[in-house]
């Protein structure tokens, strides 16, 4: 029996991905609404920054043209929406209702289980949200995004970014083991991540010192790195290596941190109710 268990080890996590896929499909209205939301957001961004650029009276602000900014922010917006899978909220709610007990009696690692579950929803919303919005932006901006190897680098980098974001969410979610409440912590996390990752304002718009400081934080590796790779048709090999290197280091550091923190925090679990 044990040999069987080892051989099929990963299939058990794919089962979680599958379950999550089937559950998402069960609520199909959600897709429609989310894509409408993304389109509206893109249009708002489009006009908001047009106004900003007009009032600035310059073609180039902080080294970015209007088109650059639009592409960057609209993409960041839709990617943020699809990458954010409410993991903090899920973990928090499971702890609050006591349903966490059910996850703990499954022969699956809690971290890996959530990672596989999240990946499904991210892939789904990438297909139904990000890809259509990508073409919408291309259309509005007059094909400003080059299509070439940059897409490959972007996808790779985005994958690493997703794992970094997942780890941050997982760690923040685990705080709920101590606090039993998640609302405030989650709000704070969202503000910090959105601001420091470049999802709301391009990082180039920050003052130099702040900008430099932010480069030492993991947040910029979530959205800023993949978007930079997407927008620039080609950069020196050295730059690519450095950017991927930084992302990889953060992935390793955060996965270890998340697992260690879970090992500690899950020991103080109190299962509420019943």
């Amino acid at each position, binding site marked *: 029996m044990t040999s*069987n*268990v080892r051989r*099929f*080890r990963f*299939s*058990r996590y*794919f*089962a*979680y991905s*599958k*379950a999550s896929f*089937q*559950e998402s499909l*069960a*609520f199909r209205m959600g897709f429609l609404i989310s894509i409408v939301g993304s389109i509206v957001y893109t249009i708002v961004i489009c006009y908001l920054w047009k106004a900003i650029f007009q009032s600035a009276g310059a073609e180039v602000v902080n080294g970015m043209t209007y088109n650059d900014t639009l592409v960057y922010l609209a993409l960041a917006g839709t990617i943020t929406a699809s990458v954010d899978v409410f993991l903090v909220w899920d973990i928090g709610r499971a702890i609050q209702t*006591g*349903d*966490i*007990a*059910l996850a*703990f*009696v*499954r*022969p*699956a*690692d809690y971290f890996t289980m959530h990672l596989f579950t999240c990946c499904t929803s991210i892939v789904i919303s990438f297909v139904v949200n990000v890809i259509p919005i990508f073409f919408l932006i291309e259309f509005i901006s007059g094909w400003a995004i080059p299509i070439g190897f940059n897409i490959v680098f972007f996808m790779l980098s985005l994958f690493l970014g997703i794992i970094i974001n997942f780890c941050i969410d997982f760690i923040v979610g685990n705080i709920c083991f101590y606090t039993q409440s998640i609302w405030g912590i989650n709000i704070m996390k969202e503000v910090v991540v959105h601001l420091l990752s470049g999802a709301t304002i391009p990082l180039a718009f920050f003052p130099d010192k702040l900008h430099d400081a932010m480069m030492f934080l993991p947040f910029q590796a979530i959205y800023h790195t993949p978007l930079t790779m997407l927008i620039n048709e080609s950069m020196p090999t050295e730059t690519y290596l450095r950017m991927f290197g930084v992302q990889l280091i953060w992935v390793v550091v955060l996965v270890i941190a998340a697992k260690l923190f879970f090992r500690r925090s899950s*020991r103080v*679990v*109190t*299962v509420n*109710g*019943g």
Partner: protein
Amino acid sequence: MEPVIQLDGITKTFKVLNRKTGMKGAVMDLFSRDYKEVCAVDHVTMSIQQGEMVGYLGPNGAGKSTTIKMMTGILEPTSGKVIVNGRIPYKNRTKNAQNIGVVFGQRTQLWWALPVIESFNILKEIYCVPDDLYKKNMAMFNDLVGVGDLYSKTVRQMSLGQRTLCDILAAFLHDPSVVFMDEPTIGLDVSMKSKIRYLVSELNKEKGTTIVLTTHDMGDVEALAKRIVIIDHGKMIYDDDINHLKSFFGAYRTIMITPDGEDVSDELAKECQTGIRDIIPEAKNVHVTVDEHSLAILVPEDEVSFVEVLQVAQEFRPLKDIQIKEISTETIIRKIYEGEAKDKNETVATPAATNGNESEA
């Protein structure tokens, strides 16, 4: 033979903030460091052999669920040792989970929005159940309860009974050596309860699965468990055969008589009690009390013949109605608990202590 579950003086204490009342209290609580320790489980020791069915009883808040959560590896004991299938559950959560099944009567482990059969398929993969075993188990489930037509329903559309049934099947899907059930029959109707009892006892027989069951329903216990463990205020107060419990503490039955054309009163109860005691000399511990429109005659069966008392009671007055009531779990538990308080462990510690060594393999 090694016991499948071994608890050795396990204790679980929780730190709880001493909350103050009112708006002012709520604000002050924000800065309070005034914790008190609550002991949910207090030095519980027991060992359970493979294939046993154990009823784990106790009033609400006695610490039953907490013990189960320590045995399943969800909680870490504050002190003491838990071994399940030769492993420490909380240290080997994943490995332990592969060999146990869990049913929480108040939660479902099935996917809410999916048809049950999909949940089963997913569980099959999560637990790495081989195809042939899966087919065999599904066929067996179908023979036992015939739930084939439920499989295409989603869990959210099911009744509580159907959902519990499916949850129990799900817990047995991967042939675990132990299944923990935390109040599986809570909130179910009579026919569903009996269906579930039948299912569980058959599964135990066919697969030799060890079953630890908590419940408040004496019917569950009588139908399923040979051995019962009682816990109250976190302390284990009884661990023995169920028949022993009945003869030891619960050799009481109550006769309810409703006199015809006469209202019951305390005087009538007193008259009845002295009447019985006069006719039957051994009946000095028979008590009669008023219970709504009837007289309740409490008969200690190890002292006096139940039938004799019944005969006397029948002739006491012309009767409209007569009923015989078995003692309830809660009453037995209360009796055991009060008994312990009175003669300090003597009557109670004995069965608990002997059972630890001689519990049948």
